[in-house]
């Protein structure tokens, strides 16, 4: 088992009791493998990953695109004047053909990628979304559907292949919508809200099968597992709650963060969950054992976004960004 052999070197010095705990949840090592230093002149709020690129959004007007195929993570494109006052969410579909970004004034931009170069699409109705106060957005795997949650708690879906026509509008209790995610198969939509509410909607029936309990403080991030079995939600309560999407039951609480959790990301296989918090800590959680297997605390600056990177060979890696204004890259230590 490669996971067991990857015990932290420090484990040998721990007490017997601690050692037992470590056996149950073997730790993993992720080593820093580069960074895009000062990628933006202000805090980086959003990251989005495709098969070979990482897009980043910040409090300045440009979106930046770095290559993740090249070990030096070079800047390959700067999309200038994308959002006048800056941009807080950027999302892509996984094959990297389409992206969407939303700026602080509420304006949504749709982007498409040809030969690794992004350019702006003019999909009209979505561009009027500013007037409805959308805050967070999500894009379906195939890039066809854009979902958004508004400051007054509405959840909307647009069909980008039908010229951005709005096809759904769900109403919730009106609490500020802070985060949203679409399941990989596109069947479910989840939104997180400032009052602690988490809702799951069926995109097929338009119904809301679950209003999930468990978090009372603002939710900052929600994420479906790749297979859609789980929904993870976290925020100011500093705990990650896992829900079973078929029953709506709360199946686990992952605690260990000491500050607000701002971002979550599932590994490609769904085995690991990555989390980043306001005190600069980044954690990797094993879903099997429901335990934290790695913690990174290189910075005390807030982490706003964390994302797993595409697997390179057997090794998984991730990227983090936030108030440091740089994007940091990590790879799993392989062998020994």
């Amino acid at each position, binding site marked *: 088992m490669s996971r067991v052999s990857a015990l932290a070197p420090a484990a040998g010095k721990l007490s017997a009791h601690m050692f037992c705990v470590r056996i149950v949840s073997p730790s993993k090592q992720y080593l820093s493998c580069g960074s895009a230093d000062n990628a933006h002149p*202000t805090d980086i709020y959003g990251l989005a990953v495709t098969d070979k690129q990482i897009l980043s959004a910040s409090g300045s007007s440009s979106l930046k695109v770095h290559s993740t195929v090249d070990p030096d993570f070079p800047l390959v494109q700067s999309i200038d004047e994308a959002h006048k006052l800056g941009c807080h969410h950027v999302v892509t579909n996984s094959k990297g053909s389409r992206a969407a970004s939303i700026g602080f004034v509420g304006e949504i931009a749709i982007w498409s990628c040809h030969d690794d170069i992004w350019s702006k699409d003019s999909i009209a109705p979505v561009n009027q979304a500013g007037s409805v106060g959308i805050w967070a957005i999500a894009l379906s795997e195939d890039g066809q559907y854009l979902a958004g949650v508004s400051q007054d708690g509405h959840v909307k879906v647009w069909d980008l292949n039908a010229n951005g026509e709005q096809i759904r509008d769900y109403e919730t209790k009106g609490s500020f919508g802070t985060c949203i995610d679409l399941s990989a198969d596109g069947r479910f939509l989840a939104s997180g809200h*400032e009052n602690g509410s988490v809702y799951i909607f069926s995109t097929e029936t338009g119904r809301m099968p679950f209003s999930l309990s468990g978090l009372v*403080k603002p939710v900052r991030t929600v994420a479906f597992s790749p297979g859609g079995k789980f929904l993870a939600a976290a925020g*100011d309560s500093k705990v990650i709650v896992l829900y079973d999407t078929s029953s709506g039951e709360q199946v686990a609480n992952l605690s260990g963060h000491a500050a607000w959790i701002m971002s979550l990301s599932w590994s490609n296989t769904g085995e690991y969950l990555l989390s980043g918090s306001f005190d600069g800590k980044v954690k990797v959680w094993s879903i099997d054992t429901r335990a934290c297997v790695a913690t990174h605390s290189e910075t005390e600056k807030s982490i706003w976004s964390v994302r797993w990177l595409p697997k390179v060979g057997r090794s998984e890696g991730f990227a983090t960004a936030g108030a440091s204004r740089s994007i940091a890259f990590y790879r799993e230590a392989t062998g020994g």
Partner: protein
Amino acid sequence: MPLTPDASHAPSPPQPPSTLDEESSPQTRVKEHIASALSTILTELSSPDGHPSLTIKLRSNKVSARFISPRTGALETQVSDTYTTYTWPGKDYYEAWKFTVAMRVLSGIADAVDKGVVVSKRDIYYQDPAIFGSQRVVDRLVDDFAHTIGVDRVALNVGAAAKGLVVGCFHWRIKDQAMADDAHFLNADTLIPSPQDIQEMNVSDVDWVLILEKEAVYRRLAGMKYHVRSTAGLGILVTGKGYPDLKTRAFIRRLYDASRQPNKRLRFYALVDGDPDGMAIMSTYKYGSLAYAHENSTLNCSDIRWLGLRTSDIVTGVDRSGNDALVSLTDRDRKKILAMLSNNPVWAVDGPEQEGRAELLQMLMLNVKAEMQILYDGDGGLVQWLDRRMTHIS
């Protein structure tokens, strides 16, 4: 609120209140207007069935047309003058009251003009708060009289009320006061005078100036003599009670100019709420306001250091006051932040306040703000927090 004088609204002026020629000085016009108004009233009073009255030209001009002037090419409006007359005793209680308060304000103005002193609207109000009911009644009448006579409010010898408060370890000499005044060591209620009334200022004992947004915080600190007891040295506490008036800004600038000596420099700090207004207030002291853009270069104090409050300090628990101290932004707060970011170069991406810009964006991101009250409950309270910050940020 009984401010709309429609009850006694007269469509046409019973008597043109002022037929003075345009050439006479504003002061003369004021004196002559007051003299004629008062003498008319006295004549009426002394006749058995007289009806003393006061006529005011309304400022709420009826805009009858908006147009581009063919002569100047500018957007102009056409307004028709409307007058209202208050008679004693009038037809109802309201008119009687209105006549009375108008008389009170007019006599306040007459008094100031006679003695050649400048009074504030607040001074007039405090002559009889019970009858005026609210400061706004006085404010409106003063402006009404200025409009009726056709002069600037300054010609009525009515200035804006002094608003800022100061206490601290400095010496100054105020115009018409014989001695250098040390009273402010003891008295926390020293109003900040007009800059031209400060004839001398000595700040040689002082290490720091702390500018406070909130009057309540100022009173708390002044009450415990923080300007003497701080571990950061001797200081001066100032509050402009929210957005500062020009006098308070001019006073801060005066301190700044007085402190620029070769061997010693005052440290200037600002403590404001962790919300868009707090940030805008800090920026008004430091850079100036868009409204007084032409005067900013003589009023700003570019050395001000921003002590807080920062939402991030609370979120990360640096202030250990708990996240419960944070409040959600209102719709107005969010709009205000966006307006600040888009209109004011202070907060631009390449502007001078990068940290402030990040803070404003973070408020939008987290949808939270923090108000000063939370510092009262923190570890060791406000004083320790300030001692720590002012020693740390120097």
